């Protein structure tokens, strides 16, 4: 039969057809899997990462198929496996951190603790997420610096996402004098909140005397605002509170010390009133 015709070594024409058929099936399977992967992950991953993942899967299947058909050409896989094992060991040791970052990057993409464009703080570095790549994550700090962080570090450290939730609370401590009326001060701050266009009615603001400090009666002001407006309102509101309180005769206290003398200071004749008038050397 024609299929028994030897083409090369012990490889017959039938073996050749089998190899071609296996490779064609592998290509079809790889395509089906990558198409489904692309559809399934379209909404979960960005385009760049999706391309990388589908390519890895596609070529992975092809490589497995090629390895499977190699014995049909008389190529011994045991030799390849030994050589591949040694090479793999060397490459593995050399690229340990790269693989770690790659896996961490994949987990970050699945867990999604942050999205591109969000303001975050990663390991003490605050900024806006510029990109989340397979190996690294890049931030643009608020000072305008480019910061690249390996994904392994990002994945294993604390991430604070400032904008994940729609509302955020701002907090001030306003210290007023002991002689001032705290209830009146609370009323003034409450009115400022009510008149402000962007502070939230609900959750209800919390404004109360928190403690009686060394130099002041400390009023805590906790107001919820839309997350996108948090920084602007935080900058604006404290000074408004200060000026509104002062307009109503309530002053912000500052550290001071009252000194009581055991013997009352002499006043009038002979008293030292101005250092320039002093007879002291």
């Amino acid at each position, binding site marked *: 039969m024609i299929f028994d015709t030897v083409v090369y070594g012990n490889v017959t024409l039938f073996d050749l057809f089998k190899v071609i058929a296996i490779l064609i099936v592998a290509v079809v399977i790889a395509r089906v899997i990558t198409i489904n992967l692309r559809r399934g992950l379209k909404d979960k991953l960005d385009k760049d990462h999706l391309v990388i993942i589908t390519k890895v899967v596609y070529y992975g299947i092809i490589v497995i198929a090629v390895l499977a058909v190699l014995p049909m050409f008389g190529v011994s896989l045991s030799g390849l496996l030994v050589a591949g094992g040694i090479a793999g060991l060397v490459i593995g040791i050399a690229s340990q951190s790269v693989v770690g970052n790659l896996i961490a990057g994949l987990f970050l993409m699945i867990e999604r603790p942050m999205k591109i464009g969000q303001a975050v703080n990663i390991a003490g570095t605050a900024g806006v997420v510029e990109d989340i790549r397979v190996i690294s994550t890049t931030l643009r700090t608020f000072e305008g610096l480019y910061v690249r962080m390996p994904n392994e570090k990002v994945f294993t450290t604390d991430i604070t996402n400032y904008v994940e*939730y*729609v*509302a*955020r609370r701002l907090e001030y401590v306003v210290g007023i004098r002991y002689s001032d009326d705290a209830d009146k001060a609370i009323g003034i701050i409450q009115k400022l909140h*009510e008149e402000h*266009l*962007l*502070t*939230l*009615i*609900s*959750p209800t603001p919390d404004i109360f005397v928190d403690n009686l400090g060394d130099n002041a009666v400390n009023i805590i002001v906790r107001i*919820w605002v*839309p997350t*996108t*407006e948090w920084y602007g309102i935080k900058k604006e509101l404290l000074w408004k509170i200060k000026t509104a309180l002062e307009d109503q005769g309530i002053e912000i206290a500052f550290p001071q010390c009252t000194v009581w003398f055991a013997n009352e200071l002499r006043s009038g004749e002979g008293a030292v009133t101005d250092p320039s008038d002093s007879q002291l050397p």
Partner: protein
Amino acid sequence: MFGCYDIPFELEKEGIALSLEKEGKGLVYRSACAGARLEKILLAETGKVFINPIEPLNKPKELTSNLLIEFEKTLLIEPEATRNIFITYPIEIGVLISTKTAVEVLDIFTLVRQKLTLYGDPRSGAICKYWMSNVYSSVPSINPLHEGIIELSITNTTKEWVTVTKAIFNAYGMKIYYRDDLVAMKASMKIMHGNIAETDFVDAPLEPGMKKSLELYTVGKIAVTTPKFIMEAGL
């Protein structure tokens, strides 16, 4: 005040002063409302100006598409019943210039107090424009430059009495109709559970003869998602 104006025009009402005048080869738009002034130069010679009540989600800032109306008095609706009520909502006035091919927003202003609130919790809730309204059984008398009316049809599909304290609407679905003395919309609330309801708008005037407002977010280029709002964090 609401309606279509030919260029040039000038009008003044209730502290609102608007004008669009020819200056040189262009047009100058000027407005003054509640202490705020605006001046824009338009490189155009023709067009029409529409002054319409628009979806009330642009002031103080475009932060949300949701309008939360809290009822001054709590409502209790009987099982498997549909009842109609009338509530008010804040008016925002849009000044739009139109040519044969396009409509553009010139200005937006409001005469009423603006405030925001959070519906739900900070994690999964929604920022909403806030308004408090009395509940009426018939069309109340209102100033159309300050307040509009929503005829709200509430359907309780459950077999229990349900308490309703608020309604939240997605402003993208609003269908506003107006005439000189009335601005109104028709909306529905379908209570599906003691704590869950869906709100939507009906594209129909409250009374015959009312004109339909230009919808700001369809004349613009912002994509519209669903016009409904699902109230999942309590009624």
